[in-house]
């Protein structure tokens, strides 16, 4: 019994160790070394990369990533909650409606981001239509700003919000809603006093999921934000490619990982069964 199980776990253990844990350990080591003359890393060991994280330039980018993620999460929550409520109440059609949300989610993320470039750019569909209708005469600067990035993130990760919300709302005991109505509560009061508090685990799970995904975003800010909206993911990528400052890139990666893990732990401690 034990032997077979050990053999079965061995490939996954090896992959996980060699291709996940070991690389993370290397990143940790790199973050504590100095930048090499031709890229790469050199001794001596130092904390310098971490102290540079809080210098105004990078601190500003961290803060901006944080705010863009908070805003995107907020928009997802506001958009997603009524949607999840709708799906949870649709009876037999629930699965169909849920699949209609998930289908675009599983098709290429890159293509979905590109679709917004196609719509938003100066000669894109929205500007072309508005101009031919005579509503505007100059193209609106829709692409390459914070708004476009938030739009792209919301578009990309809305299903991450809807799915956990749906799961909690679907389990909601209907008799509580009836009781609330019988006792004279208006639908609004039922929503704010019964439905929302009871779906708190779903709200937390969905928000954390969207937030941590947005925080690590790389593709969306690169394509929709252009050079103006830089997020922490772009800084990390840049350190390992053109800037050739691996220790700093490694330190930024670990700072991002630490943020993600702290948030997950906070939620996991509260709602054990919610996650996965």
């Amino acid at each position, binding site marked *: *019994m034990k032997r*077979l*199980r050990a053999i*079965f*776990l061995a*490939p*996954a*253990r090896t992959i*996980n160790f060699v*291709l*996940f844990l*070991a*690389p993370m350990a*290397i*990143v940790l080591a790199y973050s504590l070394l100095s930048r090499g003359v031709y890229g*790469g890393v050199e001794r001596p060991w130092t904390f310098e990369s971490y102290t540079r994280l809080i210098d105004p330039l990078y601190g500003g980018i961290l803060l901006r990533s944080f705010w863009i993620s908070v805003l995107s999460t907020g928009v997802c929550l506001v*958009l997603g909650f*009524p949607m999840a409520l*709708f*799906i949870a109440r649709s009876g037999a059609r629930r699965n169909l409606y849920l699949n209609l*949300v*998930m*289908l675009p989610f*599983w*098709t*290429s*993320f*890159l*293509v979905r981001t*590109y*679709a*917004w*470039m*196609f*719509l938003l*750019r100066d000669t*894109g*569909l929205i500007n*072309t239509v508005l101009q*031919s209708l005579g509503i505007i005469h100059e193209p609106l600067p829709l692409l390459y700003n914070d708004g476009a990035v938030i739009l792209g993130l919301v*578009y990309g990760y*809305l299903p991450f919000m809807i799915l956990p919300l749906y799961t909690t709302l679907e389990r909601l005991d209907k008799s509580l809603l009836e009781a609330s109505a019988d006792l004279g509560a208006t*639908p609004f009061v039922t929503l704010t006093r019964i439905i929302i508090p009871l779906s708190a685990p779903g709200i937390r799970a969905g928000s954390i999921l969207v937030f*941590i995904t947005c925080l*690590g975003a*790389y*593709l969306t800010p690169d*394509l929709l934000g252009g050079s103006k909206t830089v997020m922490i*993911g772009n800084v*990390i*990528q840049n350190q*390992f490619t053109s800037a050739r400052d*691996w220790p700093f890139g*490694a330190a930024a*990666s670990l700072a*991002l*990982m630490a943020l*993600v*893990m702290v948030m997950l732990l906070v939620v996991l401690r509260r709602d054990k069964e919610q996650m*996965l």
Partner: protein
Amino acid sequence: MKQRALGFYAVLVYAFLHVPLLVLAVFSFNSSKFTVWKGFSLDWYKAAFHDAGLVEAAVNSLIIATVASLLATIAGTLCAYGLWKRSAPILSNSLYLSLVTPEIVTGISLLALFQWMFRFLKIQLGMHTVILAHIAFTLAYVVIVVMARLRTFDPALEEAAMDLGATEWQAFRQVTLPSILPGVLAAGLLAFTVSIDDYVITSLVAGVDSETLPMVIFQMARRGVSPVVNAISTLIVIALGGLILLSERIQR
């Protein structure tokens, strides 16, 4: 009444989710290269299929996704079965952690590993490093999907098989595996979809000879919108959408 208001709202959200892709698909058939409809044409599809770089990248993508998802499915299925027999908290937590690690961090950590290894081995970045990276990040998806299927499987069936003289391996091979096979196939398809679509990790660990389709699309998109990209995008959405529907079917 309230459900009707919600329904109206839902239509708007569905439009938000689906219309951008539909518009993209419609304009891939536009004969003009500008965003003004000038008539139906398949020119951009023809152009896409005649672009040697694109075709090569598509072939690379297919090879990488097939090999990586196959290996990840085997390792992931065995792992899920092992974890289902008895939990291994360190392994499963580490798998979950790999799932929530931002892609850019996974990418640079693998790049750092490969660069470090190249000091001792005389190899370069290429298809093999991309395949290894893809196995690494699709493994957790497979484990989760197969695990979900195993939770609905009755362990008594395996015990019965062993009572009747089957070895552990025979019980797994002839009783458990056939019964969880739909979950395994669905997991494989999911791993394939996630692998073939990846840009962030792939672009960091790919070499000159291993450009994938998302890498080429990304470079084209960065240079500006082109109807050829619209055409490839449409094909990708249809192909991946089909695969996902298929995997949903199998799982039922």
